[in-house]
């Protein structure tokens, strides 16, 4: 137990150093150029952080969701795009680990993950489903030589061009209904991405997420056996909302730290006089504390039923509502804290080249309510609330 804890502390310390020395140092360039944060991801791969949650029995570090969440938080303080790529990779990896079946192809895949630190991207959204991830149009289709294939039109594929592997949701078979989904993992030499759109956006510019047509041909053993509906409820959805909210907290805290530094600098210039912005800073500190409470309680509630027989609870409507609400509340609170930081710093925060600049934070935070639109989540929640009781 203590060995595992030590290892997690070591992982966190390593990621903290990478966040500070690599991710933060390149964050403004990544943002301005809208380029993939290559330096951060290479450093994280080099440190073994990309394969950290692979179980010890398969040669990995066995890092917990809590440890990965703490890493997302650290990276979020340094570079939103680096943190988002790291988080999305681990959503896929933790999902695979949690639904691993004995003697499946995915076991050998995880061995390979430890050796190579393969970056996984996801292809879950699809043109024509109206943003509903619980439905697919593209299907696992039998191909020649005993292989299977698919072609999927995706409105966004985050860092797809930089990923070693893609996890794609599909209908189980050509005759399956839209909701009868599975997830398939393909390697870059088994799939191709034809870019169909651009990615010139307001924030999270470094995630490089243009639309693409994904085509793949691969052995059927690379399809996860568990139905995607179960995978989504027990792992992918709650883990997404937990890891995202941790990196959003990091973005909000860094914006807050900049506004605190601004007020401190003002106080030093006029000794004995509390700067007017100090009172706004005080209000903002309460908002940050509220966000931290949301984020940490989300992780704690997940951990309480993450393993063993209580894992079934994650499929209940009340837990669905619980993690949907985490996403909605944390995304909006992050945006509000970043706005508040700009309010404190004024023109010095508005400028892009001061120690108190919060423009990148604010623009990155504006993506939070949009990635899986909060309005769509409210629509889902509204349906669940017709029947769920203990919320």
């Amino acid at each position, binding site marked *: 137990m203590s060995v595992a804890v030590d290892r997690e502390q070591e992982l966190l310390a390593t990621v903290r150093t990478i966040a500070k020395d690599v991710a933060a140092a390149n964050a403004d360039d990544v943002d301005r150029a809208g380029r993939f944060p290559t330096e951060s991801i290479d450093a994280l791969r080099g440190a073994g952080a990309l394969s950290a949650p692979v179980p010890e029995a398969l040669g990995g570090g066995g890092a917990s969701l809590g440890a990965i969440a703490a890493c997302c938080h650290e990276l979020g303080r340094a570079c939103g795009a680096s943190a988002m790529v790291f988080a999305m990779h681990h959503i896929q990896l933790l999902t695979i680990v949690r639904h691993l079946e004995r003697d499946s192809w995915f076991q050998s895949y995880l061995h390979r993950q430890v050796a190579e630190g393969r970056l996984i991207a996801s292809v879950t959204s699809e043109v024509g489903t109206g943003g509903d991830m619980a439905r697919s149009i593209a299907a696992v289709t039998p191909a020649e030589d005993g292989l299977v294939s698919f072609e999927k039109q995706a409105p966004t594929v985050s860092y797809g061009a930089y990923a070693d592997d893609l996890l794609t949701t599909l209908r*189980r078979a050509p005759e399956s209904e839209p*909701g*009868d989904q599975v997830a398939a993992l393909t390697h870059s030499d088994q799939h191709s991405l034809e870019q169909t759109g651009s990615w010139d956006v307001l924030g999270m510019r470094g995630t490089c997420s243009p639309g693409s047509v994904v085509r793949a041909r691969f052995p059927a053993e690379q399809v996860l056996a568990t139905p995607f509906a179960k995978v989504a409820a027990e792992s992918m959805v709650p883990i997404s909302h937990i890891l995202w909210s941790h990196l959003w907290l990091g973005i909000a805290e860094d914006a807050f730290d900049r506004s605190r530094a601004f007020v401190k600098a003002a106080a030093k210039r006029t000794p004995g006089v509390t700067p007017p912005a100090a009172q706004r800073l005080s209000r903002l500190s309460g908002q940050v504390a509220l966000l931290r409470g949301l984020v940490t309680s989300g992780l704690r509630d997940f951990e309480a039923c993450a393993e063993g027989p209580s894992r079934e609870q994650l499929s209940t409507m009340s837990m669905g509502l619980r993690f949907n609400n985490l996403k909605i509340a944390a995304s909006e609170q992050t945006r509000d804290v970043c706005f508040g930081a700009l309010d404190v710093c004024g023109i010095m925060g508005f400028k892009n080249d001061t120690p108190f600049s919060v423009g990148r934070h604010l623009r990155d935070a504006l993506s939070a309510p949009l990635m899986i639109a909060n309005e769509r989540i409210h629509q889902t929640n509204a*349906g669940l609330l017709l029947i769920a*009781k203990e919320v």
Partner: protein
Amino acid sequence: MSRGAPPQWSLQTSTNLPIPDYMNETIRKAVEDHARLPVPVSSLADDDDLYQAGMTSHASVNVMLALEDAFDIEFPDRMLKRSVFESVASIQAALTELQAEILS
């Protein structure tokens, strides 16, 4: 039943119809009316997966509401999960369990 009007299905006991059959029919009617399946419910076996047959999670909420209405019960939150509503048989098992709880 300890209180309130007896649910519809318990009235059928006086006609010596086996309870599960009436329950099964009522479940199938709720599924037929609200699950929005592309196929008639009569073409499905009790164990067939309703989600695989095309029931969306949105439609499943309407099935649950119809069942609560038809049986005059409320599903507790622990039963509000996908596995309970994935087939006619699993719904029937849940209703039977609830019925036993109410009578005890």
